């Protein structure tokens, strides 16, 4: 008895009776300033992406050689790049490409890795062996070969890049998920759920996933950043999204040539990238805390 925490010890004992679960989650989430700030940022970013044509004054591909490498000014408040394109405009339009690439990558690879990883972890046996060894194969294939293959077969299109990034990245979250499921599956409450008559699907969705989701939240937050970054790596290697498409990764990569004479070329897209990853990280943290029943009612 002494070893356990009595209900009285955990905050306001009456709290749980009055407030429904989701209200409580929301309340706890809203109390987290970083998370709320991050949500505001993401919403703002999405608005910028959606309203890009309305809030910018130049075309994203409109070049103006006369204004090459202009410093931030009243006309171009984030400056201009080598071709005299407005950095702010490209950043806003780039949010469309980069965010949708990142989200597509994260959604597809999370769903895929959920299926593969969760099932592999839960059922074990041959399915586990096959999928995890397949993951081994994929994670060790030189990525350049895979990307070369994709772009030479399907062309240098945005969805092809998405596909390539997914093909190269699903194993990470699949393994993470598998590890989580492995850990959860041996818990007695899973057996209890089976004894209660829960179907496998119900056990997976109601018991296993909610308890294994923590690392995945982090992985999703970072997945968004690394998808955008991979795009820049591919750009650096010449196998990524083609110019003049405005994409953050490309912008960061191109800025390398002018790191010291035109730092604004690096600072703004890289800053946007880092802030975005940070925002998703903080949202992940906030969600984690809000969803964790053990932190219920706690400050």
């Amino acid at each position: 008895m002494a070893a356990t925490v009595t209900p009285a010890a955990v905050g306001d004992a009456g709290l749980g009776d009055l407030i429904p679960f989701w209200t409580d989650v929301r309340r706890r989430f809203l109390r987290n300033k970083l998370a709320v700030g991050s949500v505001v940022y993401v919403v703002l970013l999405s608005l910028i992406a959606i309203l890009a044509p309305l809030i910018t004054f130049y075309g994203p591909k409109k070049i103006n050689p006369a204004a090459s490498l202009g410093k931030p000014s009243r006309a171009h408040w984030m400056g201009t790049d080598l071709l005299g394109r407005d950095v702010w405009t490209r950043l806003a339009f780039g949010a469309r490409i980069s965010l949708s690439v990142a989200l597509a990558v994260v959604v597809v690879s999370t769903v895929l890795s959920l299926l593969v990883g969760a099932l592999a972890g839960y059922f074990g046996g041959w399915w586990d062996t096959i999928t995890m060894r397949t993951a081994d194969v994929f994670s060790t294939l030189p990525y350049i070969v895979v990307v070369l293959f994709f772009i030479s077969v399907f062309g240098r299109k945005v969805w092809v890049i998405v596909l390539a990034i997914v093909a190269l990245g699903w194993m990470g979250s699949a393994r993470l998920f598998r590890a989580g499921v492995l850990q959860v599956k041996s818990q007695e409450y899973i057996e209890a759920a089976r004894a209660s008559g829960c179907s496998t699907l119900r056990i997976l969705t109601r018991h296993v996933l909610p308890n294994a989701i923590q690392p995945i939240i982090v992985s999703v937050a970072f997945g968004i950043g690394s998808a955008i970054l991979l795009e820049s790596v591919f750009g650096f290697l010449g196998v990524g999204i083609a110019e003049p498409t405005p994409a953050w990764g490309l912008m960061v990569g191109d800025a390398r040539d002018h790191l010291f004479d035109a730092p604004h070329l690096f600072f703004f897209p890289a800053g946007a990238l880092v802030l975005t990853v940070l925002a998703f990280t903080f949202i992940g943290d906030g969600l984690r805390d809000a969803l964790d029943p053990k932190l219920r009612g706690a400050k």
Partner: protein
Amino acid sequence: MASYLIRRLGLALLVVWGAVTIMFVMFFVIPGNTIDILSGEKVVRPEIRRTIEKEWGLDKSVTGQYVHYWNRVLHGDLGKSYSNNRSVNELFKQRAANSARLAFWGLTIEIVFGIGIGVIAAVRKYSLLDVVTGFVAVALAGIPVFVLGLLLQYGLGVRPAQWNWPRWARFPVQGMGPNRWFVVIPLGHQWKYLILPAIVLACVQTGFITRISRTSMLEVLNADYVRTARAKGLRSSTVIVKHALRNALLPTLTVIGLDVIGLFGVAVLTETVFNWPGLGSTIRDYAFAQDVPVVLGLASIVVLFGAMASLLVDVGYSILDPRVRLTTEKVD
């Protein structure tokens, strides 16, 4: 346990076979062939082309080449480069150690800082330290390697040289340096050449590991058994190290394991920027030239290595979490 290891080794070979086969197929689907790529715009004289094709067995059918490839590999010969005639075995010998050393130190930095910062951030959740380290970790992970590398090169190599700082305060910009090692321990000035690429290599993943270990740590710190341990009056540090850390390491280990596997991949850019001749950049170079023997040869060894790493991760699981048994089903 032993039989488990042997079985997993067998599976690792299967993984290598699968990866090589996939790459083999990919190279046949990717347009262009080595001879054309090497000769560029020049049309190679038919006699020369025939000589080259015969030498490399390119005159055989796809399956013939595939069989030929394995036949050679099974005899311990990974073949020769199409483009510069270097023996792949030799290339591997030269490159693997470089890669392994860089990877080792990158990984060490990653683990020490990643887990260290993660744990501290979890214990001091939402403190200034937590927020700042979180920000720095994400920011470092958010800068592409080729930019971060350049910043370090200028900050620690070029500027100190231009400002005539003393020798000890300058770092080399590029290269392997004296190449003096005791296994993985750099000797003499070697560490100066190693440190920048190792840091850059580590930065890619440190942020992620920091966050993962912070999250798992928080999860564990709230778990019943840790609360119990605390309630028992154990010292906070004992609780963290003995009870929490061990259990929090599982997801972190997964990430690290993945990282070991992928490190050669990540190292491509680091190796390029710092001109560190390792496997990653070598594979990349030859992949662009569609130099099939080199890519297949080196990559299959990397794959084998990766399969081993994933095996180690699984063994590590069973050590950290005895419930994850390697062989038998749970009895009572």
